[in-house]
C-alpha cells in the first residue's frame, strides 16, 4: 500500500517540506493519546510490525514499541543476538524470512549506512529506518523538529546548531535535512576531526569554536560523544573535549539570548553536556522523548495508509486506517 509518504520512511533528505509538515501535523493529535489513562487507539489493529534491531538500542526501540502498541498493532522484537543473524544469515535472508510470515511493516536499526534502503528495495512491507549507520535517523530528526516547533512555532529563519561528533552521527544528517527543508538556518560545530569533510557543501555553516556557535544559535542540538572516538584517535581525551567543546552553564550564560537545548540521548553527563544544562530551564530533552512516541505513531499511521485528515478521528475509532 502506498501512502502520501511512499512505501517507506528511510531518510529525511528525499522528503519534501510538505511531507515533513504532514508528519509533524499528524503527530499533533497523537500526542494527546499518551496523556490518556487508557493509551490505546485501534488505528493499526490487525497490522503486524517487526522491530528488527541489529544494534543495541533502548530508547528508540521502546519508543517505537509504545507507538505501535498505542496504535493497537501486533509487534515482535527481533534483536541481532539470539537470532539467526548470529549464525551468519544475511540481512536479505532475514528480511525475506520475516516477510514470508506475512508481516506489514519492519522497523530496522542497523550499523551499516544504507541498510534500511537495502531492505526496503527487497521486500514489499513498509520499512521504517530507526537509524542506519552514520546515514540517517529520520524519526529522531522529526521528533527534534516537532520539539523545536513546539517552542518556536514556525522554524523559518530560526538558527539551530548541531554540536559534537557530526561525522559519525545519523542524527546530525537527519537534522540538517529536516531543518533546512523547514527553512531554518543550520550550523554545525565540533572538532574538525569529527566533522565530515566537505560538510559546508550541504549548506550549513561551520563553527570551529563552540563559543561562536553559542553566540549565533537560538537552539543547540548536542550530540552524544561515543566513548570509542577517543580510542580511535579522533580526539585526545574526553576531559579535554568537555573543556573545549562541552556545553556548560558558564558558556551559555555568556550567550546574548536564552538557548534551547536538545540532546538525542543517551547523554554522557560531564562530557558533551553538563548536568546543570541538561537539567536546566532551557532543556527540552525530555520533551523530545515524549514527542518521539507521537512522531513514530504518526509515521506508522501514515505509512499504513492512514489519511492525515482522519488522524484526529482515528484516535477515537477504528475508522482511521484504510483496510
Amino acid at each position, binding site marked *: 500500500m502506498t501512502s502520501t509518504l511512499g512505501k517507506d520512511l528511510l531518510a529525511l533528505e528525499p522528503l519534501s517540506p510538505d511531507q515533513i509538515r504532514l508528519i509533524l501535523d499528524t503527530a499533533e493529535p497523537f500526542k494527546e493519546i499518551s496523556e490518556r489513562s487508557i493509551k490505546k487507539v485501534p488505528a493499526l489493529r490487525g497490522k503486524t510490525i517487526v522491530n528488527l534491531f541489529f544494534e543495541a538500542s533502548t530508547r528508540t526501540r521502546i519508543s517505537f514499541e509504545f507507538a505501535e502498541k498505542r496504535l493497537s498493532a501486533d509487534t515482535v522484537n527481533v534483536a541481532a543476538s539470539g537470532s539467526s543473524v548470529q549464525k551468519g544469515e544475511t540481512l536479505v535472508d532475514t528480511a525475506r524470512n520475516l516477510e514470508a510470515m506475512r508481516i506489514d511493516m519492519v522497523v530496522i536499526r542497523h550499523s551499516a*549506512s*544504507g*541498510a534500511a534502503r*537495502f531492505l526496503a528495495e527487497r521486500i514489499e512491507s513498509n520499512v521504517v529506518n530507526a537509524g*542506519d*549507520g552514520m546515514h540517517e535517523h529520520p524519526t529522531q530528526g522529526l521528533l527534534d523538529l516537532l520539539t523545536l516547533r513546539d517552542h518556536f512555532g514556525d522554524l523559518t529563519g530560526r538558527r539551530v546548531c548541531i554540536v559534537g561528533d557530526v561525522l559519525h552521527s545519523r542524527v546530525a544528517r537527519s537534522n540538517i535535512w529536516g531543518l533546512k527543508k523547514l527553512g531554518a538556518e543550520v550550523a554545525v560545530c565540533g572538532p574538525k576531526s569529527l566533522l565530515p569533510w*566537505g560538510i559546508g557543501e550541504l549548506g550549513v555553516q561551520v563553527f570551529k569554536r563552540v563559543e561562536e556557535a553559542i553566540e549565533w544559535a537560538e537552539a543547540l542540538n548536542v550530540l552524544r560523544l561515543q566513548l570509542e572516538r577517543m580510542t580511535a584517535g579522533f580526539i585526545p581525551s574526553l576531559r579535554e573535549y568537555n573543556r573545549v567543546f562541552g556545553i556548560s552553564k558558564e558558556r551559555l550564560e555568556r550567550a546574548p539570548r536564552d538557548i534551547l537545548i536538545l540532546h538525542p540521548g543517551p547523554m554522557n553527563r560531564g562530557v558533551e553536556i553538563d548536568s546543570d544544562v541538561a537539567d536546566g530551564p532551557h532543556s527540552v530533552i525530555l520533551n523530545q522523548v515524549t514527542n518521539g512516541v507521537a512522531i513514530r505513531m504518526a509515521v506508522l499511521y501514515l505509512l499504513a495508509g492512514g489519511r492525515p485528515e482522519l488522524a484526529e478521528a482515528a484516535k477515537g475509532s477504528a475508522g482511521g486506517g484504510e483496510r
Partner: protein
Amino acid sequence: MRNMLLLTGGTILDPSCGVNERGDLLIADGKVARAGGRISDVEDAEVIDCTGCYVSPGFIDVHCHLREPGREDVETIATGARAAAAGGFTAVCAMPNTEPVTDNQAAVGFIIRQAHRAGAAKVYPIGAISVGQKGESLAEFGEMVGAGAVAVSDDGRPVASAHLMRTALEYAQAFDIPVIDHCEEPTLAHGGSMNEGIVSARLGLRGIPSEAEEIMVIRDILLARRTGGHVHLAHMSTKGSVELIRWGKERGINVTAEVTPHHLTLTEEAVDGYDTHAKMNPPLRTAEGLAAVREARPHGTIDVVATDHAPHHYDAKEREFADAPFGIVGLETALALVVTELVGTGILDFPQLVDRMSTRPAKLFHLPGGTLAEGSVADVTVFDPTREWKVDPSAFLSMGRNTPYAGRTLTGRAMCTIVDGRVVYRLTQ
C-alpha cells in the same frame, strides 16, 4: 600445408606502423604474413569478412583478477580468458592476489598451464612483490620471471613499506620487469568504502580521500627516481595523481600509469542509493577527477587503459554497502566504454584507442603483440566501431555479473579475436 587465415575488407589500424587504411591481412602459421592492400592471390586460406570493421593488433589488458587458484566459484583462468577474448583482448595479465598468493615459480607455472589448457586469450601471470603479499620480504622475482611472470605487484594490498617498494624497484631491474603498485596509503584509506567528499558526507559512508592515492603516487615516483626502476601505477583516479605523474615524466623518471574504463566513465554519484556495483578501489571520484584522467590520455600522461576486471560472487555484492567487496568486471565492456565515452566524445581517436589498449601495453610490459608488422605474432582484434549493443550481464562469458553498466546501450564491439593465428572468439549473432 600452411595454416592460413585471410581477413578481408576491413581497415587495418596499427599505430605501431602508423597504418590506418583499408586493406587485407594474411596470417600464416601464427604470424602476420602480409598486411595491407587487396590480397587475392592466396588460395586455401580461411577467409573472414571484416567489412566495416577495424583490424588491429590484439588488445592487451595489463590488470585483471582471474581468481584461480582459490576462488574458482567466482572465476577461473579458463572463463576469464574466454571473457577476455570476447572483449577483444588477445592477452591479459593476471594479478597475484589469488589463494594461495602467486608468489613463487610453481604458482606462476600453474597459471601458465591453466591458460594454455583454456586456449583462449593468453594469460601472463604477475608475481607478488612480497611473500604472501604480506608486505614484508621480497618474493623470488627471478624464479617467477623464469616461469613466465611479466611483472610484480602486491595489487589488492598496497605496499605500505617505502623500503620494500624501493628494494622491489631495485631488484626488479635485473629482470627488466615493471613493479606495479596499487597506490593507497593504508592508514588514510582505513575503513573507507567510497570517495571522501560530498556524497560520502550525505550517505554516511566512510571516505577514502584522494590523498590516500596521491601520497603513494609521489612516493613511488620519487623511489623510481632514486632507483632508476620502472614503476607502473595501477588504476589512477585523481587529478592530483595525473599532475604528479606528469611531473615525474617531465623529469624523465621511469613512471607509467593506467586508468580503468570505470574511472573514465563514472563518478562518485554512481554510489548514490548504495549501489554496491559502484564500489571499487580506488573509489569512483568526482567530476574533476574524471575530467583529469580523461584529459590526461591524449597527451599520454596516462599510458594505458586496463580493466581491473574483478569478478565477485552475486551474494558478495548483494549486501550492505560497507560490507560488500570492491571491484567490478570489465573485460567484456572495456572496448565499448572507451569507444562510446572517449572516442564518441572526441577525447580520443581510434588510433589512440588501439595505442592505449594494445601497442603501449605490449611495449611497457615487454610482451609479444601490439603490432601487425609482417612477421610479428598474429594476435589480432577485429572490432566493429559502430555496432550498438546492450549490456546484458547474463550473457557474459565471465562468471562475474557485477557491473554497473547493466542495461546500458554501448557502441563498439569485438567481432573476432585471433590469438597466434587461431580464432578464439567470434561474435555469433
